């Protein structure tokens, strides 16, 4: 095993990270449904994934007209991968397509959290906290879910690894933060610096500060400052290699008999306002390879695994002026794993006609993501519907756990 807790240089820079990296000794889940020893992974896609490119409704007659030059097609040099009569998959996701056809992956489309505005942070707060409104940032629903689950035998103190929850990355995503102790792990090469930050600063400085603008331009030109999507193997959570590294490391830990059963990861970079197809293709490749990494590394535990990939909201149905899309509402979520009842796209499809769009601009949301997550929590982990509606997703009683997601 070649695990290390974060990069020594990066981690060393800020000792505060240590709190996230405390080993814990959570009990394993005694009687998850079906007598299995399940694994549950949540991948947060920060930035608002465009569900209409990831899982394009190619069979919808309005799709092509709305998406114009960024519409995917079933022919041409990069044909989309067929899922069913209505939906296809972005060509960058061959692993997910393979799992889908092996009945080990599913999509839920036209879904959303309870959040209906368009701020990334607020949307992520709602997605991760499990509360219906922003501002609850003390704990995440996955952590509270852990506290409600039936407990099994303790892993002895001093064991090299522990059951319980694993947070992957330089900092623990909100979804897994809270009272239940969490083990932190990050690939040694994981850098928190994000390749898109310099571009955003460049825009800001161009409007506000000629000196900083010149310095930053120089820095980027001379390679002192890594910037943009072309940065080679940055290894961060917005980079395909970084995503796969995070997934591989998490899966290896979770594959161990006394390893963590629950993990949360966050992948960045999904805010595709411009040149969407190229950028999403790169990011979806990272996500797709992450699914494959979990499948490969979890070994026999794969059959008891569910991975969900969720984002804070979707994007506008119509293409914008820069070959991208802006903040919207409904989107798609991915489920993968041997315990998933796969081969289905679950959607109460609202349609893409002008009158069917929310506010005349967004894919409407017809499925509550919380119902999907609660369905997994009940049928995979043995969660209590009452506690799920009260403690895990407060105020979500109306969104009943979805059935039929787990084999």
């Amino acid at each position, binding site marked *: 095993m070649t695990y290390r807790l974060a990069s020594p*240089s*990066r981690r*060393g*820079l*800020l*000792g*505060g*990270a240590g709190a996230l990296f405390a080993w814990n000794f959570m009990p394993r889940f005694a009687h998850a449904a079906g007598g299995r020893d399940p694994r549950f992974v949540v991948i947060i896609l*920060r*930035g608002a994934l465009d569900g209409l490119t990831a899982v394009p409704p190619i069979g919808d007659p309005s799709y092509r007209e709305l998406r114009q030059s960024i519409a995917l097609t079933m022919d041409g040099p990069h044909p989309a991968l067929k899922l069913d009569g209505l939906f296809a998959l972005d060509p960058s996701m061959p692993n997910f397509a393979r799992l889908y056809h092996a009945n080990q992956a599913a999509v839920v489309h036209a879904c959303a959290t309870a959040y209906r505005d368009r*701020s*990334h*942070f607020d949307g*992520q707060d709602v997605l991760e906290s499990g509360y219906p409104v922003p*501002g609850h*940032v003390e704990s995440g629903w996955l952590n509270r879910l852990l506290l409600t689950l039936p407990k099994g035998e303790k892993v002895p103190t001093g064991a090299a690894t522990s059951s319980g929850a694993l947070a992957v990355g*330089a*900092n623990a995503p*909100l979804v897994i*933060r809270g009272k239940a102790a969490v083990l932190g792990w990050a690939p040694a090469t994981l850098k*928190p*610096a*994000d390749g*898109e*930050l*310099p571009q*955003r*600063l460049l*825009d*800001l*400085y161009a*409007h*506000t*500060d000629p*000196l*900083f603008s010149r*310095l*930053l331009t*120089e*820095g980027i030109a*001379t390679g*002192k*400052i890594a910037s943009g999507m072309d940065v080679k193997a940055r290894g961060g959570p917005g980079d395909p290699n970084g995503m796969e590294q995070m997934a591989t490391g998490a899966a290896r830990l979770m594959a161990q008999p006394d390893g963590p059963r629950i993990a949360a990861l966050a992948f*960045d*970079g*999904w*805010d595709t306002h411009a040149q969407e197809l190229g950028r999403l293709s790169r990011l979806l490749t990272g996500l797709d390879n992450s699914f494959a990494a979990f499948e490969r590394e979890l070994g026999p535990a794969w059959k008891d695994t569910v991975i969900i990939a969720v984002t804070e909201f979707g994007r506008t149905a119509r293409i914008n002026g820069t070959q991208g899309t802006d903040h919207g509402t409904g989107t798609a979520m991915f489920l993968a794993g041997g315990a998933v009842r796969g081969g289905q796209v679950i959607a109460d499809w609202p349609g893409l006609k002008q009158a069917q769009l929310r506010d005349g601009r967004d894919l409407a949301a017809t499925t509550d993501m919380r119902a999907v997550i609660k369905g997994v929590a009940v049928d995979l982990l043995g969660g209590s519907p009452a506690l799920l509606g009260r403690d895990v997703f407060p105020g979500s009683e109306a969104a009943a756990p979805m059935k039929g997601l787990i084999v």
Partner: protein
Amino acid sequence: MTNPAGLDAALALSRFGLGAREGSIALISQNPRGALKDEVTGRVLLTPVGPELRQTSDLLVELFAFLKERKAQRDRQAAVAPATSPAQPPAMLLGSTQQNPSLPNSPQRVFLAEVDARFNGTIREPVIGIGERLAMFWANHFAVAVGKGPGVRILAGAFEREAIRPHVFGRFEDMLLAVETHPAMLFFLDNQQSVGPESKASGHGKRGLNENLAREIMELHTLGVDGGYTQRDVTSLSRIITGWTVVGAEGRLGAPGTFAFNRAAHEPGPQTLLGISYPDDGVGQGRAALRDLAHHPATARHIAFKLARHFISDAPPSDLVASLATTYTKTRGDLSAVYQTLIGTETAWSPTLVKIRSPLEYLVALLRGSGERPKPSAIMAALNAMGQPLWNPSGPNGFADTVDAWASSEGLATRIDVASLVANQTPGRTDPRRFATETLGSLLSPDTQDAISRAETKAQAVSIAFLSPEFQRR
């Protein structure tokens, strides 16, 4: 011509203080200029504390023991393997700090404890923190560099605690005397080796003068390079302060590790400095010379210029410098009066942010803003990366205090790294929009506000706030 109170509050915190924390702008916005003045007249300045933060003589006694033990170890190793082990130079006070793995490294341990006591201590408390900013200013004015060796490394913090801080709001003359008699400065500028050519200790001319400290006292600490002194004056002052030294482990001149006047090394006889003759009354000869240097008009101008350059602009208006110098002269070097003149001028409250925060100021502002409390080794790693290792400038002139010195693409690259790191420790807990409003107040530009609210993640949004022009400038 006055600013809205909200703007003054933000300026007080960024230009004259340590940077805003959540709530601090609101806390002083009733009367920002009054709050700043109150910190000056109230002499608000905490003392760094901690079990390792002992007085200079105690630290030096520990250092003597450390160096003795290290030498003994090396001798033993040399005796075991004389053929393969290259000869080690004798452990000297100013020798290498190379760490022997089996020995606790006293100088580095103490140094990091001093770092901790400030970055996780004294910088956290004050509402504005002009006293702390001034302590940083004066420690850089009277710079010592820990790279000189274990003596300076173990003492740099004690030097700042004992010679700088007590006089930040006091009289320049007292700070000058405290600095030039402090063992850290005597080691750093070699005065403990300087021997009067006609003194008993010279061994008939075998040992002699070292002009280092005397030159820097005039060039850097008091008159300034254009202050009208000559080489003859440098030689005179160096003779005057011969015998100013530090008591060794044997305690021949007093308690080990304390300042001592060694009459045997002191050049006998009167000396003429800048046209004034100083009779030889021992240590008093040097004290009288320093007192006169402190009150010299060139010193008044030099100090006035450096303060104005630090807080206001690289080329401060000459009338501002003149009025600070006038206050200095009128009050016989009462530093609090000089600061009050500075913050009482309208120039000091110009809404235009022309200075760039030095890496030290920048890191302090990041830590105050975020509330993060990194380990001292992590703090040093960040400062080193940004090019301003604490108390370790490349020369006795200290770190540069101009925009040009810090405005480089390398510097910006490392600021981006450090800001991202801090931002990545705090996402989730803070709403970035509120955070930016709380820490920048009226300085927050609509463009920055917009870039923050459009950011993809909270961490990215906080990074943008930390890297905005209005956070990097002051």
